[in-house]
């Protein structure tokens, strides 16, 4: 089976490779791939345990895999073999007969000290062998994280790429009438569980972004008479102002090494320019000097380049420059305006918001501006953020007469899903893989 799946992904990669080298044909090839796409069938059995913990963990694993769009968990009613001992080989024929390509088994036991020991195995049905077998120790309260880590291991083994399930999302929770919104900072697991609020709603908070360690967020807040950029610990909620500047500061993001915050200063002459602030030395460096609006800066993963938007040419367009501000070059040339560029963690693409003919789209292009593809379009889609493996993009969407909600779509434009949040939600930012 591994060979089959490998071949499937080789095919996918070949398609991706073709898309990267022959952009002219990209649209056609994506459509062909979309038409032929079949998710990998997996059987996720209830993990054995003396209580309901085993089935709870395995159902979260199955849900993660299903939501990725690459896997389709089989109905448990169809299973022919009942796993009673996960340490011995399953009856491969029984799983092959129901079409399973992968089988996931496991067991949860409670240690003397109260911790959970969670074991799982991933079986290759067609190759009749074990692909992966690992065990984890975890506190009772972190069982969901164990499930996400197992789902990441399965995803990694079967696709050859890192997973993204053991991650969290910071976002802005929205309540109240649309002309007097209450905007609270919130954090939630990528599967929509474990919602926590990080602010009380007394101040309006916008555009939160994770630090590379996922321990801190930077955002802008309308706290006092000058709305500015802040830095907040996720645990403990201590926070600090990022520079006591006389004017508004907006659109913050961390550098990939976590040492700097890049943001825009709203200058006294009405322009906006991009600055960095070193978080240790507190020195600021100005990177752009125009009379235009330069904002929404985002570093390349290795930190040597920066992508940002500017209306210096009349409309908002995407520009790339070196990390020291030199060599500023426009890369977007399509119809309409381009904004909120975000560099993929893989470095291969830049995601953006595009406004064209009254429609707001989320799209991607390569860092040289070629290969532009729109992944979703509609009344209002805005603010992309990348899964840490660079394969899925999250954004927010607002339909007429409704509040915003958060969605995901993969880089091929397939598998659009809503992140379920209790209230309206906007400005998502995806964390790196948690440690």
């Amino acid at each position, binding site marked *: 089976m591994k060979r089959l799946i490998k071949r499937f992904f080789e095919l996918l990669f070949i398609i991706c490779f073709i898309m990267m080298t022959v952009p002219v044909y990209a649209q056609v090839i994506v459509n062909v791939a979309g038409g032929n796409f079949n998710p990998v069938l997996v059987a996720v059995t209830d993990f054995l345990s003396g209580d309901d913990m085993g089935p709870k963990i395995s159902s979260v694993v199955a849900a993660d895999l299903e939501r990725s769009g690459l896997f389709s968990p089989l109905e448990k009613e169809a299973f022919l073999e009942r796993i009673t001992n996960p340490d011995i080989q399953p009856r491969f024929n029984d799983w092959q007969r129901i079409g399973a390509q992968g089988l996931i088994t496991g067991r949860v036991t409670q240690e003397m000290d109260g911790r959970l020991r969670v074991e799982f195995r991933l079986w290759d049905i067609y190759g009749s062998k074990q692909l992966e077998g690992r065990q984890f120790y975890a506190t009772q309260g972190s069982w969901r994280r164990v499930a996400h880590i197992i789902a990441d291991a399965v995803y990694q083994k079967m696709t050859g790429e890192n997973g993204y399930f053991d991650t969290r999302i910071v976002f802005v929770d929205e309540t109240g009438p649309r*002309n007097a919104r209450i905007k609270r900072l919130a954090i939630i697991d990528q599967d929509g569980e474990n919602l926590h609020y990080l602010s009380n709603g007394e101040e309006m908070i*916008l*555009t939160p972004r994770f630090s590379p360690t996922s321990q801190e967020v930077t955002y*802008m807040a*309308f706290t006092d008479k000058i*709305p500015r950029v802040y830095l907040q610990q996720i645990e403990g909620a201590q926070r600090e102002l990022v520079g006591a500047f006389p004017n508004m500061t907006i659109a913050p993001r961390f550098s990939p090494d976590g040492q700097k915050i890049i943001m825009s200063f709203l200058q006294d002459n009405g*322009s906006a320019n991009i600055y960095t602030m070193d978080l240790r030395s507190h020195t600021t460096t100005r990177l752009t000097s125009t009379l235009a609006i330069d904002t929404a800066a985002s570093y390349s993963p290795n930190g040597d380049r920066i992508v940002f938007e500017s*209306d210096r040419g009349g409309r908002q367009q995407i520009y790339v420059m070196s990390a020291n501000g030199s060599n500023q070059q426009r890369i977007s040339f399509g119809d309409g305006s381009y904004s*909120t560029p975000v560099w993929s963690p893989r470095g291969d693409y830049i995601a953006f918001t595009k406004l064209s003919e009254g429609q707001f789209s989320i799209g991607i292009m390569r860092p040289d501006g070629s290969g532009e593809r729109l992944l979703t379009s509609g009344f209002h889609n805005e603010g992309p953020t990348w899964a840490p493996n660079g394969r899925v993009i999250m954004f927010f969407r607002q339909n007429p007469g409704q509040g915003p909600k958060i969605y995901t779509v993969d880089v091929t434009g397939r598998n659009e899903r809503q992140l379920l949040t209790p209230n309206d939600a906007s400005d998502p930012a995806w964390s790196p893989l948690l440690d």
Partner: protein
Amino acid sequence: MSLFQMIIRSPVAITFFLLLILAGCAADNKGLDNSSQSRFSTQPGTLQDFTANIGDRIFFDLNSSSIRLDAQQTLARQAQWLKHYPQYTITIEGHADERGTREYNLALGQRRAVTTRDYLISQGVVPDRMRTISYGKERPVIVCDDISCWSQNRRAVTVIERQ
């Protein structure tokens, strides 16, 4: 000149007067609330006088921060009033419509607030009395997901601070 005459003469005032009637649903409208309570009996030099008789806001074209001709008239009246009542300081709030991205709209709102401030300076208002703030697209005054509302939300509002 009575309020009625003013409304008849000025298209801006007509728009504004209609706004007063329509904007009962708006929350970001301290000035409007004040004025609608007492729009037929305002004391000169009061906040109600400013919002009802002078006009506390100007509107902008799409993606633009240029002061339109109708806005120039409003700002000229604001400057006159502010010079006549030097006890007040003001905050100029810049706003954008919802048909833009968040970061850009914050900067665009600031650009609108700054051009408004600079116009008032050119009309003789002392810069020290004014500060600016941008709310981007976060505080629309009217919500209807329609072009008629968006144009009302592209605005700069002169907020009089009490002493």
